[in-house]
């Protein structure tokens, strides 16, 4: 299945992050894209509705999986990727390793992509 990953962050929390930690995470982000290159596709995407959204958020004791889209008013989408993996559990497993989840205010929303356009031919 194809999923769009939306990487969101809270710019207002940037000041709380030690610059050295930020730098180290940025380096790990670069490596993450290298390591997981196989799962990424380069196409654009149309998303299914927000009721299909799942978000993996920064949590005190490691990433937390929740139902629904990111919804804090101060969150901004920093970028997005399209991945092609077997199922939702595979998408979550990949997202959990996203290095920026170490940082407060970071979340990644997972949305399935519209792949079957026949559902619109009524």
């Amino acid at each position: 299945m194809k999923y769009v990953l939306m990487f969101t962050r809270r710019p207002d929390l940037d000041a709380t992050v030690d610059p050295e930690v930020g730098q180290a995470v940025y380096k790990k982000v670069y490596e993450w894209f290298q390591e997981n290159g196989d799962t990424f596709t380069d196409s654009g995407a149309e998303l299914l509705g927000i009721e299909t959204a799942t978000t993996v958020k920064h949590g005190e004791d490691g990433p937390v999986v929740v139902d629904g889209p990111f919804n804090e008013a101060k969150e901004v989408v920093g970028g997005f990727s399209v991945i092609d993996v077997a199922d939702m559990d595979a998408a979550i497993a990949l997202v959990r390793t996203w290095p920026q989840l170490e940082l407060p205010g970071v979340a990644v929303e997972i949305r399935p992509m519209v792949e079957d356009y026949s559902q619109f031919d009524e």
Partner: protein
Amino acid sequence: MSDRAARHSDGLLAHTLREESGVLVARLARQFRDFDLAEEAVQTAVTEALETWRRQGAPDNPAAWLQTAARHNALDLVRRRSRQDALATRVVSEPAAYDGTTATDDRIALLFACCHPALAPEARLALTLRAVVGMTTPQIARAFLVNERTLAQRIVRAKRKIVTAGIALTVPADDVLSERLGDVLAVVSLMYNEGFVSSDGPTQDRDLAGDAVWLAGVVATSLPREAEAWGLAALLTFQHARAAARFSADGALVLLPDQDRSRWDHRAIAAGEAMLERAAELHASGPWQLRAAIAACHATAPSWAETDWLQIVALFEVLAAHDPNPVVRLNRAVALSHLGPEHVARALDDVDALAVRLDEYHLFHATRAQLLTRLGRDDEAAAANTRALALTGNDAERRLLATRLHRHPLTDGS
């Protein structure tokens, strides 16, 4: 058909549904590659069975009857989606290939999908009750005292998300298994507490608490290396073993100190102890095993006075390290006060330290009242009692209390 025959058929149906429906949903979902359709087909078969069996009596082989009806409904649903005629033809002509999974594997995989963290927490239990346990939406709505339409919408949304978001009907990989199992055990525990709270309510046509005990056993036997699964199975087994003594002849709630222990199910208590031993052999302690160990202390004590309070205090102490819920500390303080009169003042200090977090909780004030009475501080005790009563004064608040009971499971053994 007489009432008695109808009741008999209901009991048989409930048993059959609980054994068969989860397995049927999982099998049909794989065969038709559509969880939503499979679940709908089984749900319709359940409703048909309720009607037909009440009218005509139960068939000789209820499981086969249900399977045939569900499969028939699934094919019907496929045919109705006319675009997919080709699929219907293919599925009819190809019998499902045997892929090595057993009925238990199928059911546990379905349970993990229904309790997936990507689903809204309030939908997980409702979906589990429908898809895995074979309850109908009206039965679930009655058990939870919620609006049927709201509940139906919640279930539809959750089912759609499983299909559209690609949530697989599989047991999670080893590296996330214990975390995902935590979500499953939370749902099964909630199911028991819902059943416990509503057990004296009207129109109970399913024994929700009994179904939860059964499901906890299914989870533990399916994942025999998971100590916490055995822990929850043991806990619910102990709690359920005391069910017969929990209400007096006139229907009033009887708390643990006053229960007639000869009415407890001592065979079930022995079974619970065996489960707890099994968990201990796995050397992976956790909160469900600790709660079960506390319940075991109560279940095996000859009387309230002869309960091993020292061990209970120690177990609550360890549990508090796992579970930050202030009710755990409240229960620890109560156990401490039973060690002897010299411990009561210390117990009251511990309870008072929880005031900020538990001020709206009626059992906090009721506990304070009891401790103050034992210290001879009668005026303060009376004030605490008034506050406790004010928090439980009418039916709406009773319902609120019921809600809180399920949020804070009954570790005090009532």
